[in-house]
């Protein structure tokens, strides 16, 4: 059982809320982190822990776009397409990725490494175009930068170009 393996974490999560159901999103996050998507058995398990029916878990899961009901690629490339990023070229980012990986939005590469999505605003409007890959942000993308990110991810599973604690513009050196 998934949650048995994270007993301490589950207990810590539950302890934060006076009403059990509040732990639903955190537990779903945990499940998705582990399995890459929210499986039916995870939903059932969580329902049980929180005294909910599976339907109650399901309706909540499907409201939030970050939860996947099916497995996706190891790296989830999410390119923001909202107006602010679009003004600075996000549509091209999609084209670059498409060119490099041969996948259109909604598709996954044959090696199951990359899934491409276009998404709405990710809160990085001043540093667009950008994409989020799993937990990390990559901003002010160029074709070359996208290429490097994808190569690094494929090779190393990580990439040093990801954004750290955010500050933009950087203060001018005095």
């Amino acid at each position: 059982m998934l949650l048995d393996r994270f007993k301490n974490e589950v207990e810590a999560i539950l302890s934060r809320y006076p009403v059990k159901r509040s732990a639903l999103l955190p537990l779903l996050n945990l499940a998705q982190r582990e399995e890459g998507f929210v499986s039916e058995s995870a939903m059932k398990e969580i329902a049980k822990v929180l005294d909910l029916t599976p339907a109650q878990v399901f309706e909540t899961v499907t409201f939030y776009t970050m939860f996947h009901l099916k497995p996706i690629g190891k790296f989830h490339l999410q390119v923001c397409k909202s107006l602010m990023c679009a003004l600075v070229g996000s549509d091209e980012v999609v084209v670059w990725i498409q060119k490099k990986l041969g996948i259109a939005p909604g598709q996954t590469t044959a090696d199951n490494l990359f899934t491409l999505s276009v998404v709405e605003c990710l809160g990085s409007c001043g540093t667009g175009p950008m994409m989020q890959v799993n937990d990390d942000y990559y901003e002010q993308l160029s074709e070359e930068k996208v290429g490097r990110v994808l190569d690094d991810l494929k090779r190393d599973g990580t990439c040093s170009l990801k954004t750290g604690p955010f500050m933009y513009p950087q203060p001018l050196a005095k």
Partner: protein
Amino acid sequence: MATYEKILLKNMEQPGYTGSLADYEGTGGYRALRTVLRDMQPDQVIEVVKKSGLRGRGGAGFPTGVKWGFIPKNHPGPKYLCCNADESEPGTFKDRQLMERDPHQMLEGMAITCFAIGAQTAYIYIRGEFRLGAKILEQAIQEAYAAGYLGVNILGSGLTINIYVHLGAGAYICGEETALLESLEGKRGMPRFKPPFPATHGLYQNPTVVNNVETMANIPHIINRGGEWYASIGSPPKSCGTRVFCLSGHVKRPGNYETPMGITFRELIYDLGGGMRSDKPLKAFIPGGASAPFLTPDHLDVKMDFESVALAGSMLGSGGVTVMEEGTNMVWAALRLMEFFYHESCGKCTPCREGTSWLVQTLQRIWNKRGRPEDVGVLDELCGNIPGRTVCAFGDAAVSPIVSTLLHWRGEYEALIREAQETMPRNKEIPVFTS
């Protein structure tokens, strides 16, 4: 170029400042909390904040002290503070910086707020994508617990204050305060109708204050330097203090700029932002996030305070300023935002749910040169039938891109439609709508 004293971004802009507890304390951090616990009554804190004229930085601009004052004093059960870190309004990215670069500033503000309203528990509802921010906050919270600023008997005061980070999972609407509460309760993030207000029936039906990250971050400074000091900055009496404006779009130097309220858009865009990124002139700008109606170059000298922007027919909203250069098609711009609103409508209210889907399809058609002469009239009518008839303010916001672009650039719609009429082969299939 004018320079302004910064309040919120000051620390983080110091070279070498990491946002750690030690760094924060080194700049006088947590002094305000000590003062409050040692010398003040909750009501006094609320008074100071009222006097400061601080208004919410989340979008609605409600006076913060007044909001706190609505919390019932003798409620038998628990009370809660929720910090709104959902920051999902397109054009806005200030809270992200405040959290990732100086987390203790907002944590101290939250602790003081808890004291003022009598809450023992606070949640930071942070959007699910901000993993890094959440991690940084978690670490900061641990530091604060270890140092006795949070937890049981904080700073020997006998008070208990716990702060927890709660990650969302991808839903813009959860930034709306009642949807946030529903989401925090583990449900679908559908806004509740008001009244009752969160101040009396909030989280788990208990009295609750919901405040934005930036609002919280201001609190320690107001305590340290006094309500009068804060109220003297910006454009008093209605727009006091500084704001962190988020500049994006076709400018040379996009990013977060903290200035007192009341500077002009021209100053922000041209002085601080360095002007347009190519040589094309400015065509349009959004003054306060995606929900705010578009303005034109004629409005560049409007002051960036609540009243002036409202007078110009828009709103200061979340402080996200997006600039568009000449050559940007306004139908396209409206469509991009409409797609956002269509995607994010929670679907509770009929006019918002059906209206956004209808509007987005009509706009897509017009943009794809399949418009019909009557379409502009349909847009006008639909946009008249949504605002004011929904549970939350999303319905009002959703139509503002279309209403304002129709107001200022109606010709662009008509041109596209004319073109469609001229070029559209008869009987050609209408493109299939996909969500």
